[in-house]
């Protein structure tokens, strides 16, 4: 566990010890040497974690933009992949690989040529619209669109700050701080590596969940204090939705805690390293539930009722503008990022490289990279949901939460308890690999069986699942002269 080549905390501590010894240690306040070194280490680690999160947040925004563009431009996920090598009109999509500096894309070009030969299209040359024929014609080494978010942020900074006349000014001003501060506070206890964290308390998961659920209060404040009917409705929807989804979230996290036997994030990851499998293979249902609940918690499609732009204009943040809006927007993505990181830590083994035992060289990859890669991978699902799904209605969200998520999360908790009591009980050092294989294959089979939701009887009777019984159609042609 401690063999990370990136021992960031140790290095910082050593440097600060050196600094402290050579300044404070030589003065008459020498007895504070240790405390000062400790304080400086903590401070620098906080800054580094925050900086790392904020810098990589740009990746998240960039990913969303690019992925969504792909999903919407082309024909869904399958053809999104395909569009990497073939454009809609049969022309390769920009041949960007040839424009990379120093030519690392040349093999890619060869693969592209090969793929085009057996999976290219050549029959839709004529019928293409101008809309989908987008391609990028600039320089590729600047990562097109990557720095757009910085420009957006600068724009927000220059905007005027306005408070509606009838708003409750104090609450209106305090709400964004509540939302943003608690969101940033989440990252205090989310480690980016075994030695790359700002704080590591014994009960970090408990604190994390507590802080994570403060932001909805700020949302409610913002919605109510704006004194606008849309924001009020958005705030109330948010309160209802987050109350309904907070409980399943806590129960699911509790199952992870029970299975791992610790309230500490780092120890949860250590358990996954010790047991030899990631938690996703032990609690497959729990991981899916966690993903669903997190989508609802961060209020993204399909659960973005509080800011449903079709009927509530912009929901609870209709009245905000300028950098307050920009920071709340950033904090929403930070919450998404926190959700992705938590999923990576709880279910995907955190910084554990896959097949670390069988592929020893993989351990040379810095652990922080695995954390980010796993979190970004999870973010793909968030974008995918947004591209593919529709918005659910308020009553349907609540019904789904109370009727399905809560019982299922309790079942998940029971499963975790059983696993903890009889399999991963800490007595038997040789933990069986058969158990995760069985659980995963059974769950996969169940998932596939339940996903096939075609109801042959309903198809036969021409009835529809969510509607009352249909009557026969008027016979065509009866009105013809």
């Amino acid at each position, binding site marked *: 566990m401690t063999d990370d080549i990136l021992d960031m905390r140790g290095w910082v501590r050593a440097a600060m010890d050196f600094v402290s010894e050579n300044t404070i240690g030589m003065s008459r306040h020498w007895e504070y040497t240790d405390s000062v070194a400790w304080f400086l280490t903590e401070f620098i680690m906080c800054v580094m974690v925050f900086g790392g999160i904020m810098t990589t947040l740009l990746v998240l925004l960039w990913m969303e933009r690019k992925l969504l563009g792909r999903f919407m431009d082309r024909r869904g996920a399958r053809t999104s992949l395909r569009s990497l090598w073939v454009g809609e009109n049969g022309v390769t999509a920009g041949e960007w690989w040839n424009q990379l500096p120093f030519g690392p894309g040349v093999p890619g070009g060869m693969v592209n040529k090969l793929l085009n030969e057996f999976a290219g299209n050549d029959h839709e040359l004529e019928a293409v619209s101008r809309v989908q024929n987008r391609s990028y014609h600039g320089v590729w080494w600047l990562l097109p669109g990557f720095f757009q978010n910085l420009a957006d942020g600068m724009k927000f900074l220059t905007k005027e700050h306005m408070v509606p006349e009838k708003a409750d000014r104090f609450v209106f001003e305090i709400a964004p701080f509540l939302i943003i501060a608690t969101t940033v506070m989440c990252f205090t206890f989310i480690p980016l590596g075994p030695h790359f964290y700002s704080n590591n308390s014994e009960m970090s998961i408990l604190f994390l969940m507590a802080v994570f659920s403060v932001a909805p209060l700020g949302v409610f404040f913002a919605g109510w204090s704006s004194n606008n009917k849309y924001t009020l409705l958005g705030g109330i929807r948010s309160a209802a939705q987050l109350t309904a989804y907070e409980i399943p979230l806590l129960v699911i996290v509790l199952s992870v805690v029970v299975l791992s036997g610790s309230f500490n994030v780092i120890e949860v990851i250590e358990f996954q390293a010790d047991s030899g499998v990631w938690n996703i293979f032990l609690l497959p249902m729990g991981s899916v539930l966690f993903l669903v609940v997190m989508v609802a918690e961060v209020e993204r499609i399909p659960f973005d009722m509080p800011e449903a732009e079709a009927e509530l204009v912009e929901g609870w943040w209709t009245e905000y503008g300028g950098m307050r809006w920009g920071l709340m927007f950033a904090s929403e993505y930070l919450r998404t990022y926190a959700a992705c990181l938590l999923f990576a830590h709880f279910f995907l083994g955190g910084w554990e490289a896959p097949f670390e035992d069988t592929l020893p060289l993989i351990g040379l990859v810095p652990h922080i990279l695995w954390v980010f890669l796993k979190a970004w991978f999870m973010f793909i699902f968030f974008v995918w949901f947004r591209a593919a799904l529709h918005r659910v209605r308020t009553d349907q969200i609540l019904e789904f939460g109370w009727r399905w998520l809560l019982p299922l999360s309790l079942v998940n908790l029971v499963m975790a308890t059983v696993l903890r009591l009889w399999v991963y009980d800490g007595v038997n050092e040789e933990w069986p690999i058969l158990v995760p294989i069985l659980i995963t294959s059974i769950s996969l089979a169940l998932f596939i069986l339940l996903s096939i939701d075609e109801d042959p009887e309903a198809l036969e009777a021409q009835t529809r*699942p969510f509607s009352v019984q249909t009557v026969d159609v008027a016979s065509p042609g009866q009105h013809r002269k």
Partner: protein
Amino acid sequence: MAEMWISMGPQHPMTHGLWTLKVKVDGETVVDTEPDLGYIHRGVEKICEARDFTQITTYCDRLCYASANTWSHAYIYAAEDLLEVEVPERAEYIRMVAIELQRIASHLMWLGAYCPDVGNLTGMVWCLREREMMMDLLQELGGSRMHYNFPRVGGVKRDLPIGFALRCRAKLKLFLDRIQEYEAILDESTIFLVRTQGVGYAKAEEMINHGVSGPNVRAAGHNYDVRWAHPYSVYDELDWEPSVERPSIKGSDCYDRYRVRVEEMRQSALMILDGLDKMPGGADTYHEPGDPAILAKAPARAAEGQTGYHHFEDSRGESMFYLAGGGEGRGKHPYRVSIRSPMFITIPYAAKCMIGYKIADIPAIMGSFDPCIGETDR
């Protein structure tokens, strides 16, 4: 929570245009609605009294921004009834192609707007992608992308351009394939089904009593399509069938209205393909503008007391034009132009439909009736 009135519009994402829907809500439930139309009233009927019969076409194009061609054609048939013009058959076929292409484009615009109404942006981008193909074809015909000014009294402005039939067939064939994509992202999505099925019931009898027509009433199982019931132009020579849904016992819901429009797009595409085959003189021949094969001579003046009337299957329902000739005193202008807009009749009924549902259903129900405010306010 106490009941309160929310004013949605004139600038609101739900409105699909510029109008106000006042909603009385009790918490999340809609208790009462009050549509408030007239925000973009331009007085088209009055303006038309000071224009000659060719100029009015341009104004009728602007009645609906999503479906310009159908409206100018609705006018032109009434004008031909007034001026007693016999239209060449080839021109009628070309008109049919233009109208049906416009109908597909209009329905795609509707579907593209309906997807974000229920929360999905991908569907919108996909629909606009195919709409672009229809726009390109219409641009080849009319020379413009939105307001084509295509028909003339007695025929059409231009013949089909050389190669149009080939491009049209290829694009429609591709389009027929791509309708399946919409069905894949909408019909196979449980969330779309729970958002649209069982929501916004509208009964056929009530709709007929209100005067609602077009796809909305066909969604309720009532087979009334003007093209079918009272065929004008060449619709009785084509191989097609109006799309009629099987509504539920409680009436047609949003899903029915979605299905009927998707089916109608299919029917329109097949109709165009059929019409291109049956076109007199062949779809590949080209006549110069003004050739008698595509444009008949028409008088510029209408006698006093003479009236012209036509009812027409617009993309949104049954549109009617009533023209009264003014004789020598009015010169080349009509005495009176009266327009029956299907949406003007549908919107109050749609507003009634959403009582009892949730706020989140307002865009889903309102959008499913396909409102277009340009023609409503005229």
